[in-house]
């Protein structure tokens, strides 16, 4: 097929570093929210809280590496009125502060506040993509529930991955509940992914749809069905709960990371160009328009 200058092309403005922010931010905030559930059940919260904050911080530092003028990074706070990127940055500050206090005092009230801030941060991430009107696979409203569910799923997933490092007290208090959570969230994310893809049919460049179609096996089966089965098995055979839980968490986490990496860096074809009509030209008659690549 010959090159068509009007066809959508893959954006290269936001690369793996931007994807890393969505990965780190999603997993970190998801982990902070799941930590609240574990904390309410009596599990110690120090390690998962620390891990969640590290994920968020790593993600944000990746963005800092990507911007053209890193020394002007404080300018990111200038537009809270309409920019979801500003709002994300604003929420990140109390999130980190509250996280530090929660680590220090390990008081459940702070963990509750931290989880609320984490939820707002995650919502901002979803809206950042939704506001990107130049990229059809990002601007769909169904990206927001997808980002929310995958963040929570990744959070539950990494809580389970951390289980061998957590105290037996923590595993006893919250392990089973987080397994149930992962099972439910994997199913929810599977549904959100299918709904996201269905919503894009006919409303995104063909090349982008093909990328998402190619990713379906890994995202839906390896990252959705397999962890759900493993989590259910772990619930049924409690003697193997930890290794099965770790395996379920690893697969669910990988599935989420892979999905976001694909959406940000591989399926992110731009709008391309289109004309509604072609010109009459002289004494001729006008012709149809064209929207190549759709």
């Amino acid at each position, binding site marked *: 097929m010959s090159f068509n200058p009007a066809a959508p092309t893959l954006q290269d403005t936001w690369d793996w570093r931007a994807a890393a922010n969505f990965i780190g931010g999603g997993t970190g905030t998801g982990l902070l929210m799941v930590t609240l559930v574990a904390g309410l059940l009596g599990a110690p919260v120090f390690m998962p809280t620390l891990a969640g904050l590290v994920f968020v911080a790593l993600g944000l530092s990746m963005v800092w590496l990507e911007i*053209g003028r890193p020394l002007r990074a404080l*300018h990111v706070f200038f537009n809270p009125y309409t920019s979801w990127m500003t709002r994300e940055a604003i929420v990140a500050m109390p999130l980190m502060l509250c996280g530090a206090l929660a680590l220090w005092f390990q008081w459940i009230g702070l963990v509750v506040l931290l989880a609320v801030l984490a939820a707002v941060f995650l919502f901002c991430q979803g809206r950042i993509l939704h506001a990107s009107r*130049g990229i059809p696979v990002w601007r769909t409203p169904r990206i927001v529930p997808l980002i929310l569910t995958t963040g929570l799923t990744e959070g539950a997933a990494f809580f389970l991955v951390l289980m061998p490092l957590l105290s037996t007290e923590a595993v006893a208090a919250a392990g089973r509940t987080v397994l149930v959570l992962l099972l439910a969230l994997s199913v929810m994310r599977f549904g959100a992914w299918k709904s996201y893809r269905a919503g894009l049919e006919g409303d995104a460049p063909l090349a982008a749809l093909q990328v998402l179609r190619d990713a379906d096996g890994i995202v839906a089966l390896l990252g959705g069905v397999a962890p759900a089965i493993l989590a259910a098995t772990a619930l049924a055979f409690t003697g193997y709960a930890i290794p099965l839980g770790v395996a379920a968490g690893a697969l669910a986490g990988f599935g989420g990371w892979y999905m976001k990496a694909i959406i940000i860096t591989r399926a992110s074809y731009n709008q391309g*160009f289109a004309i509604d009509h072609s*010109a009459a*030209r002289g004494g001729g008659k006008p*012709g149809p328009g064209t929207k190549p690549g759709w």
Partner: protein
Amino acid sequence: MSRYVMIADLNRCVGCQTCTASCKHTNATAPHVQWRKVLDLEVGEFPDVRRAFVPVGCQHCADPPCMHVCPSTATGQRKDGLVTIDYDLCIGCGYCMVACPYQARYKVVEPARAYTGLKRMIHELKREDPKRLKVAQKCTFCSDRIDYGLENGLTPGIDPDATPACANACIADALVFGDIEDPDSNVSQLLAENKWFRMHEELGTNPGFYYLWDGIDQEDKS
């Protein structure tokens, strides 16, 4: 209040890219950066195939998604509708670039060099604008020319010194610039006498770039 817009007459454009060259000359853009460019498209299926030349660039939308997403307020909008970038505020995050449905924004991270491996040419050194490096940049509708013209009693779109370089340079009069809020302006008259569309209008950006594709005949008018 004025709102400046551009009209591209698809019946007239011959795809000569003089507007592209003129823009590059006026604004000293880097080698791979084209604030104004003309797409050369094939339309239709054999044997009914035709060619279309479509000038594109920043559409100076009335509701610009690039401005809403900008975290630094570097992207702004003037009262006359022009969408601007403050290079001193921009952090180069690229959010505006993914928010723009018209691929009108660029980010250059290294100084311009037309010939890789050779040292930079005299004009490249002379016309380099370090403020534009590592930040977003795009067509300004030659706002400096418009401002100069207005300060000197000229009419943008009519007087060449107050008109964007691309419109000035167009050999076929295909690019026309003017104030759409003035019912007697050149652009208002063209829009009244011709059929037109705007690109990706369904995205709600309210673009300030109109494409003429046919004249309105008397039957249509009645």
